[in-house]
């Protein structure tokens, strides 16, 4: 079975600080990887995804993530956060060979202080 770990439960940053949120997964096969964002009171929105190719993927709003296969990691980064980035961030994975089921991490709450 697949599982996803997000080690940071709550991150607090000042505006313009750099962000890195950790995500590790456990699965031996080929996977697709996702980061979703949930702004307060809203539904989940896709931030970025990795299926294959360049392991450094760029998403919306200046976010990027790097897939490191040897470390089973897919960390999310942003060089300079804004107050509007305050949200909950979820890493998710599904197995390429299986059904379309997504396995989610428990989420990381990001609070950006103006």
């Amino acid at each position: 079975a697949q599982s996803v770990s997000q080690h940071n439960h709550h991150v607090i940053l000042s505006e313009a600080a750099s962000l890195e949120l950790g995500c590790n997964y456990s699965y031996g096969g080929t996977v697709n990887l996702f980061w979703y964002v949930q702004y307060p009171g809203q539904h989940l929105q896709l931030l970025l995804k990795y299926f294959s190719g360049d392991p450094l993927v760029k998403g919306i709003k200046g976010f990027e993530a790097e897939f490191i296969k040897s470390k089973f990691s897919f960390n999310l980064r942003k060089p300079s956060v804004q107050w509007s980035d305050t949200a909950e961030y979820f890493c998710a994975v599904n197995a390429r060979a299986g059904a379309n089921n997504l396995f989610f991490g428990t989420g990381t709450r990001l609070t950006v202080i103006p």
Partner: protein
Amino acid sequence: DAGITQSPRYKITETGRQVTLMCHQTWSHSYMFWYRQDLGHGLRLIYYSAAADITDKGEVPDGYVVSRSKTENFPLTLESATRSQTSVYFCASSGSRSSGNQETQYFGPGTRLLVL
């Protein structure tokens, strides 16, 4: 562009009552999913459906029933609601692998359910 909608958005019910949460998508996506979101657990899959009349259990299916008679609808029923089913429920959909629009799931706005 309606996308994926859920109703009701908020629901309060009592223990033992039957509750049905509705999900409707306008993209003709093959796959549909129900998740529940709880603090400390992230999102957990309840049930999913690969196509009309095809459903399968996810990680936490107990106490829930689904059906999919039409591609665009995927209702979730709590047959006899319990307090532990108080949660936020999200519906999602995605295309099939053969359609070339696979893998990415698109989420509805959620239903907040409180069971007293």
